[in-house]
């Protein structure tokens, strides 16, 4: 038998007694949507492949073997080889790793900027808000891919520079939404109560508002992964991102262009990989949005 105090503690902290069934209920709700279930399956498969790529017994994705170039699929090379005789299956799977790491880093960068700008702007208002939102409106009017292209061009080719470029332009739309959410939270009773209890601005932002809007931020981020993958792969395809011999889907498409007539599968495979990844993350993002934050539903549609 557990003591009374223990049970009271669980009630206060929302411990396992309450969190367990709620968690499971949400998880079941997610899986009930066939689209979301498919998305979760795709994402989990990709994450597994990406994380485990170095330990899967595959051919070296960067080993050049010119006598075996442009081979059709065979037992030894299930998806054939590219123009330098490298194993396509191995490059696709290692490309998953590159793509997912790049997307995660870009997402982290852009969401950090968006949350900082959005929360400060929404919380403080006044001239900092006017100035920051002026910058946001300026950037929002602009095609983000072209802006990223200009930034990546200025920084020079390279995957890291593309991450910085995409991260530096992607945050603007989110900053506006997070500002709106923060603005709404600031009017809530619990913020007034915290201020009455003597909490400073920073403490209110970090300890009171941030935990309350975290769910909405996660939804925003999850809806974004697909776009970021498309952006990073697009810039790599144009030659600005991942440099040879790094296995990356966009760069693989670029490599395969001269062999369009003779080996179309070299273009179709990375293209399909990008599609599957973006589809998977979009499905999961839609599912999370419907589950966690019905209020955001309209923003995405």
């Amino acid at each position: 038998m557990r003591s009374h105090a223990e049970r009271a503690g669980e009630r206060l902290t929302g411990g396992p007694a309450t969190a367990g069934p709620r968690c499971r209920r949400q998880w079941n709700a997610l899986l009930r949507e066939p689209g979301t279930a498919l998305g979760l399956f795709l994402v989990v498969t990709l994450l597994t492949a990406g994380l485990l790529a170095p330990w899967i017994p595959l051919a070296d994705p960067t080993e050049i073997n010119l006598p075996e170039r442009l081979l059709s699929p065979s037992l030894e090379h299930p998806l054939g080889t590219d123009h330098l005789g490298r194993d396509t299956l191995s490059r696709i799977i290692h490309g998953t790793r590159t793509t997912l790491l790049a997307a995660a880093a870009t997402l982290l960068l852009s969401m950090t900027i968006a949350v900082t700008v959005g929360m400060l702007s929404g919380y403080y208002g006044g001239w900092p808000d006017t100035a920051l939102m002026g910058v946001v409106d300026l950037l929002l009017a602009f095609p983000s891919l072209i802006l990223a292209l200009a930034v990546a061009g200025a920084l020079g080719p390279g995957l890291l520079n593309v991450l910085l470029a995409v991260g530096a332009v992607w945050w603007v739309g989110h900053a506006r939404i997070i500002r709106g959410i923060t603005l709404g939270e600031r009017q809530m009773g619990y913020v007034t109560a915290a201020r009455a209890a003597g909490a400073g601005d920073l403490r209110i932002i970090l300890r009171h508002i941030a935990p309350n809007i975290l769910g909405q931020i996660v939804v925003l981020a999850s809806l974004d992964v697909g776009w970021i993958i498309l952006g990073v792969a697009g810039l790599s395809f144009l030659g600005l991102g991942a440099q040879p011999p790094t296995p990356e889907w966009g760069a693989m498409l670029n490599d395969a262009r001269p062999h369009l007539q003779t080996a179309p599968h070299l273009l179709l495979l990375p293209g399909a990989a990008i599609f599957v990844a973006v589809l998977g993350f979009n499905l999961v993002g839609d599912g999370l949005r419907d589950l966690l934050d019905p209020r955001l539903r309209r923003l995405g549609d």
Partner: protein
Amino acid sequence: MGAYVARRLATLPLLLLGISAVSFALLSLAPGDPAETILRQRNPGQMPSPAAVAALRAEMGLDAPLPAQYVRWMSRALGGDMGRSYLTEQPVAAQLARRTVPTAMLTAAALGLALLLAVPMGILSARRRGGAVDAVVRVVALVGASASSYALAFGLIILFAVKLSWLPAVGYGSAAQIVLPAIALSLAPMAQLTRLIRGSILDVLGQDYIRTARAKGLTEKAVLMGHALRNALLPAIGATGVFLAHLLGGAVIIETIFTWPGLGQLIVGAALTRDYPVVQGFVTYLAVVVLLVNLATDIALRVANPRLRYERGQV
């Protein structure tokens, strides 16, 4: 209305100043010395002497402080002189002008195609919500939003140009050559527009005035076409600027694949070779276009939606 347009036009120079200053600063802070780049272009394989680099820097005004450089660039740009490309040494303004027509043709064709498909799909899907048509349309929209335009472009080339030989794969000039790039480019905006129109029709159909229209005995078709559609299309008009941005962004990649001689191809080449005057000129030029399109969109919204005209006493 006139006062509103005048007020909006007055803020344009300010926004432009902001965008051009940011892009100018960004490119000036970028690594690499333009004078050295140009000298390497002129004498390939040779290391330019420091004296020659310094002389060219002085000639180009690169030794002046950054704000002074910007003021000089801006005052020339106002007169239509955006400098010369480092690479081809051609005037940037002339290059931008020459490449505007192909890009405008391509984006217009793609936007037209997207609207042609998205409006009926959105309406059908909303009318038969939850039915088979709705399910198909939603899957099409989702797939369209997830497929990358470049993967689709290659799929189209492989199928229609290589396997079937129905259409030319690349090039510019004939009507047949615009078909494949326009389809590839229209995919993403088509998907987004479909979702947007479906959502906004469903929103509008829940309003009181629709119930009134139904109650007075109008057919469902009359309700939809006469009452719902006009209001439902407002968000789509409002989002035109966003779609234009998507189209222009997509055009960068599509033009490269189909060797379409437009602005996208120009900027990719310039970004890869760090041809900063071209990038700078392009960014500023694009800012003008996007800001003007946004203005036109807002005016169109006011024409379509009289309620907006009375906002803050503006008529």
